[in-house]
């Protein structure tokens, strides 16, 4: 018998950071930024929420980086509070979405042909409707407010992930290594835990993280057009819609900074998603 030959490998002298290191560094930075936003919101307490009429509509300066609004709120503090609200709404809505997606995917793949047809129909129907219109309808029907926004976002964001999970499960179920496992006398419970789960949890985790930006942006959009969070809340959507009235008067900082920060938050989640994808399946991408 030919000897087993072990491939000798030469360690590369690392010349700066490789692609993977950059991806993980970006993910870590994203996570840090998000964590500090959440922490800062707690530390700020009432600052940025209580009005201070002595400093109204002050432009950005060294002491007030983002300027102040018509009620004298510090815009930096207010933006951080807004991002924090977005984070919570996003977290709850995205988690509910992932749960719905998981349950529907399991239902479709384990309860027979009619269940699969039903779920596929639901996915097609939900994806065929204009997203924002559906959001507005649901939020409006539920009477607006935080709970309504969370429900509206949660029940409109599951289709894509459901489709991915369903395809993944179907593909796995017909994979030869699953049949081999069955032929070796393994129970479906064993196969579910040892073969399916390791393939599915990365999808779930990445799906959860990548749902965040959608949830946050849609929450902001709903709130911006007035069907979302209460105007009293320091939400980014509220800040942006308030800023509209003052933008024409040259108070540019009211819209610019909250907008940019929202974009930054979304990019942070994107970076985390990419990092998680890499950690979940290091075989991919050898570059």
């Amino acid at each position, binding site marked *: 018998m030919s000897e087993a030959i072990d491939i000798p490998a030469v360690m590369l002298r690392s010349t700066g950071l490789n692609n993977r290191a950059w991806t993980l560094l970006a993910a870590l930075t994203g996570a840090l930024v998000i964590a500090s936003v959440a922490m800062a919101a707690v530390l700020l307490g009432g600052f940025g929420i209580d009005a201070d009429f002595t400093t109204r509509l002050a432009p950005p300066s060294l002491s007030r980086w983002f300027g102040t609004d018509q009620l004298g709120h510090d815009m930096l503090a207010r933006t951080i509070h807004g991002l924090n609200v977005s984070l919570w709404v996003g977290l709850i809505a995205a988690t509910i979405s992932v749960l719905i997606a998981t349950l529907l995917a399991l239902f479709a793949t384990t309860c027979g042909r009619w269940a699969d047809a039903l779920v596929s129909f639901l996915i097609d129907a939900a994806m065929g409707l204009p997203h924002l219109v559906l959001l507005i309808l649901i939020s409006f029907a539920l009477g607006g407010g935080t709970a309504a926004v969370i429900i509206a976002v949660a029940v409109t964001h599951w289709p894509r992930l459901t489709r991915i999970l369903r395809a993944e499960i179907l593909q796995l179920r017909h994979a030869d290594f699953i049949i081999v496992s069955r*032929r070796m006398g*393994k129970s479906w419970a064993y196969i579910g835990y040892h073969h399916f789960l390791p393939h599915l949890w990365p999808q779930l985790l990445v799906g959860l993280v990548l749902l965040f930006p959608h949830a946050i942006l849609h929450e902001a959009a709903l709130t911006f057009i007035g069907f979302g969070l209460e105007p009293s809340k320091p939400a980014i959507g509220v800040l942006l819609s308030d800023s509209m009235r003052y933008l024409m008067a040259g108070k540019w900082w009211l819209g610019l900074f909250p907008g940019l920060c929202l974009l930054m938050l979304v990019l942070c989640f994107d970076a985390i998603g990419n990092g998680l994808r890499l950690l979940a399946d290091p075989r991919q991408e050898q570059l």
Partner: protein
Amino acid sequence: MLEARDIHFAYRPEAPILSGVSLALAPGELIGLSGASGGGKSTLGRIMAGYLHPGRGSVTSGESMSGWSPVQYLHQSSIFAVDPRWRIGRIVEEGWQPDEATRQALGISRAWYDRYPHEISGGELQRVTLLRALSPQTRYLIADEITAMLDPITQADIWRLLLARCEAGLGILAISHDAPLLARVATRTVTMQSGKLL
């Protein structure tokens, strides 16, 4: 006796893949199954191993179907037969604890055990899946072109081991287009053409 009776199979009714195939494999017998590609050899192998259900007809192996199946199937592309997220050691030992003698006879190194399937070569992985299938509970082995992509030396090593197992009572269905190989290993050879045994 592993017996396939009057097997019919088609993905689309207008294009039958198998039409009325019967084949019986006795313990200790090595049947060679040859024929042009696309003739239905692999489909018959997968049906006899329980990977596919026949549209009509039946497969019986005379043993209960719970637990380890007495019929195991091996395919040329072994990469699909292993979980890409499992390491080799776990793959080998998923169903049973292979004995050291067989492991060494197949030239499987312990050093592979903490690698992933894509980190060893196709020939090495083929031997891993063979070791996994050769439990004492396996009565029949369907070997679908398992040495087609290997070098002749490794091929001979594998068949030496399989012939010894065959002598000890393992029934083997060797699917191959390699006529000289079948002539050397098979007790008898059957040929398949357009979904029928000639």
